[in-house]
Each structure stands twice: as structure tokens, then as C-alpha cells.
């Protein structure tokens, strides 16, 4: 079917949605794709999984919105290798990020974000992007001495005479929290959390 597609056909709507996304910095780059596969041949996720950046653009240009539910899109490393080698100035890495944001807007992929809610929480409590505590057990298992190091972080920072301290003032935290409330970020996080917790409860 796609072999009969003309540029004026409706499947291009999906590509246009990506082009119009606020995150897109490549103008009409996605329409310039020549399917050369340079992206896939240099991609670390393609090397080690079923992720295929060339195919992502093919499906976008075919108007295939099922890609939003394809688990493979979550394998991108965001290394921008595809972006840096593309001969026509497209960026699959950016398209991938936009696809995920469209998915999230449509209620898809909440389970993928749930573990990362800590990145949001640390912003409201400390205005920093701390590694979510949910991962500390894994890190402690995988990295010898890491937990002990973290317990002594303040002393190490003191020895290095680092100033200002890690924790920003209340005023700064309040201002940042306010920004992330008015952009709609806080409501989005609450929605994702509530939806996942309801699902978890159903399962148990």
C-alpha cells in the first residue's frame, strides 16, 4: 500500500505533527530521509537489540501510528549518533523523543516513566535531578563501596572546600516548584503516579 503513497496523501500528517512539535530542531528533516540506513548502522541500540532507527522514520512517513505502542522505541540511548551522521540533517534521536512525548500525551508508556518519578520528586524537594532512590538497592549491589561513599559525601565535599552546599535555599526551591507547576509538569506527574498506583493495586 505504501508504494502507492503520494506526498499529498494523508499519512504525511504524522510526520507533520512531528515537524510541528516544540522539541523538533531539524525543521523538515524527517521528510528528507532517504532511508540510507546510516543511522541504523551506527546505532548502539540497533547493534544490541531490535531497535531500528531507519525503520522508525519509514513508519513515521507511512503514517503508522502503531509505533507509539512499540516497545522497541524505548531502547534508544539518546546518544545522538544517528543525529550526528545523518546526511540529510534529520535526527531520529529527536523524532524518537517526540514520539515518546506523543505517546505519553495519549496515556501510553506510563509504566515506563513510573520508576523515574524520583527525578520529578527531587526537583520539588531540592531543585536537583537526583538518581531516584528506587534504584539505590541495585546500585549498591552492582557498585562496591558506593553506599558507603554516599554516606560520606558531605565530608568529601568539605575536604574539597566546595561551596555553596548541595541544598539550595527555600526561595530557590519554591521558585522552581512554581515553574514546574505552571508548565503543567506537576499535574502530569500526579496523573502518571495515580494511574500506575491504581494499576499496581488492581494487580495485588
Amino acid at each position: 500500500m505504501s508504494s502507492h503513497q503520494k506526498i499529498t496523501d494523508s499519512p504525511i500528517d504524522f510526520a507533520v505533527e512531528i515537524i510541528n512539535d516544540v522539541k523538533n530542531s531539524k525543521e523538515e528533516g524527517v521528510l528528507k530521509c532517504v532511508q540510507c540506513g546510516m543511522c541504523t548502522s551506527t546505532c548502539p541500540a540497533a547493534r544490541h537489540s531490535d531497535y531500528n532507527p531507519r525503520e522508525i522514520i519509514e513508519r513515521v512517513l507511512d503514517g503508522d501510528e502503531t509505533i507509539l505502542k512499540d516497545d522497541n522505541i524505548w531502547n534508544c540511548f539518546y546518544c545522538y549518533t544517528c543525529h550526528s551522521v545523518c546526511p540529510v540533517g534529520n535526527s531520529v534521536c529527536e523524532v524518537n523523543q517526540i514520539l515518546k512525548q506523543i505517546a505519553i500525551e495519549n496515556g501510553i508508556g506510563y509504566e515506563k516513566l513510573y520508576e523515574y518519578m524520583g527525578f520529578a520528586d527531587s526537583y520539588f524537594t531540592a531543585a536537583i535531578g537526583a538518581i531516584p532512590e528506587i534504584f539505590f538497592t541495585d546500585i549498591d549491589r552492582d557498585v562496591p563501596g558506593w553506599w558507603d561513599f554516599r554516606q560520606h559525601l558531605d565530608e568529601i565535599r568539605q575536604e574539597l572546600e566546595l561551596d555553596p552546599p548541595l541544598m539550595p535555599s527555600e526561595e530557590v526551591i519554591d521558585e522552581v516548584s512554581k515553574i514546574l507547576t505552571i508548565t503543567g509538569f506537576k499535574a502530569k506527574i500526579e496523573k502518571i503516579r495515580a494511574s500506575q498506583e491504581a494499576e499496581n493495586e488492581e494487580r495485588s
Partner: protein
Amino acid sequence: MKNVPDKDILLFRSCLVSVEYPGVEASTKFVFDKLGIDYAISDKQTCCTGLGHYSDVFDQIDTSAIGARNFKIAREMGRPNLVMMCATCYAINKKSVKLLNKKDDLREHINKLFDENGLSHLKYEKDDLKPTENIFHVVDILYGKKDEIKYHIKYDLSDYTIATHHGCHYCKVHYEDTIGGVRDPNIMDEIIEECGCKTIGFYDHKRATCGTGFRQRYSNPDLSFTATADKMNAIADEDVDILVHLCPNCHIQFDRYQHLIGEREGRKFKAIHLNITQFIALAMGGDLDKVIGQKAHTVPINSIIKELKEVEK
């Protein structure tokens, strides 16, 4: 080469540097002081949102609104040159400046939100900052001053086998602004040469990612560590003693997980991992505890560097 400033700099604090390798911040200050670079740090500046952004939790509007606030802080200090210690902060901030300048609807949307919520003092006007003229990584600043590095070198590190790992978010995201090559990145190799050392230059997978992949390390560790192993094996094949980094996220992936990846690969990896500023600070005589911050490292620095020999004058 693009114009690189040595003054009016806001040294942008990084979350990962602050809590994982604070010695990178101490070493950056040590080296900047030696080279006479005019910089300051602000207690008002906050995280760029990078880790959350690349875990898909923060969208562009959230990130650029936080960016606008940090850009205002820099301008109010009279320090419009933002200099990042972390490659991701560099990529994130440069992209926000580009988008805020170019996309009127994004800028107007964020400014309207600020206006309506008592935050008018944070508004960003078009071209308040310029992506190429104002947004830098620490390596850019070091490169701009590289001819002066040799006058401050105390120790000779040339007997070690040295390789570089150029972070993707420095080299590949805004490739039009990258100094020293994108496909064959060499900015750090050139800086290291000014310390009287020669790196091994190009090696297999030199331009490849560290394998962190943001969510991949935590949600998809097999994929992440397999990608890292490509590079770690290539580095071991070259018998590298010191791998030099420019990004704290890559630094974590190699230093923290080297032992685990060694077990997975059935191979003993020996390289120590230093940020470029730690490498230069060490060569300039910085103390291992008070400047380099060796206690934060998982692969002990003294497993490779057992003694330091002074350069022959």
C-alpha cells in the same frame, strides 16, 4: 575556531558532579584559577533537568522554562557565558537557547506563564543569549587557553597509556559547535598533549557512546552494559591505564561499573577514570584528596598512579 571566552563566566553546577564526583568541580576551579579564567558559581542556579529530560519525564517546555530561569540568573550576574562541567547540561542548555530564540510560540508561551504567575522577572527575550557565543563546555574554555597549560605542569604523566572518551552530548548533539572533530573527536587529546603527554589517539569505538543510555542503565541494564563492554574491551585491548572523560554520566558508567562489566566479560579491566580537569589538575600538582577528590572514585586512582615524578625543568 569559534571565539571562546575566558571571562564573564558562570560555571554551571552539575547534579552528577556534585553528588558523584565532586572532585571534578574542585579540579575545574583549581585549573581555571591557574589559567586566570574569570568565573563564578551561583547558589541560585539549579539543575538543567537533563537526567529527567532524557528519561522522558520532563518535556521541552518544562526544561526550557527551567533554562530561562538559569539564563536570567547568569545575565543578572553579568556572566552571560554559561560553562558546563557536564556534557548533558551543555546539550540541554544549548538546545533551550536555540529554541527560545528561534521559536516565538515557545518563548511567548513560557513568558506568558511567567507573567500570569508572578514570575515576570524570569522572562526570556529573544537573543538574550546566543547558542554559539554564550553556551560552552569546560573543555572549550580549556582549549581556548591550551597554550598556557604547559607553564603550570608539575608532574610528568607521559609514562601512562592514555585514551580519551568524548561524551556524546558534547560532540554529537550540537555538532556545528564542537571543537576538535565529531566523527574523530580529538579536543581532549589535543589538550592532554599540552600537559606533555601523548594519547593513543584513535581506537576502535572511540566515538561510541559510554552505554549509559539514561533509562537503559536502570531499566535495561543488559543492553546498557553490553554497549559499554564494546568500548571497555577496545580500551583494554590498547592496554590503557587512564581513560579521560568530559562527562560525569560517562564517568559513572565506566568507573562505577567497570568491576561488574569485567565479571560479565570474564576479563579484568584496569583503567582508572579521570575527568579532563582532574587529569590536568593532577599534572599541575593538585592534591589527590583536596583537589582531585579521589575518595569518590570506585576504581582507586592509586591502583595506577602509585607515584608522581616531577617534570624535568
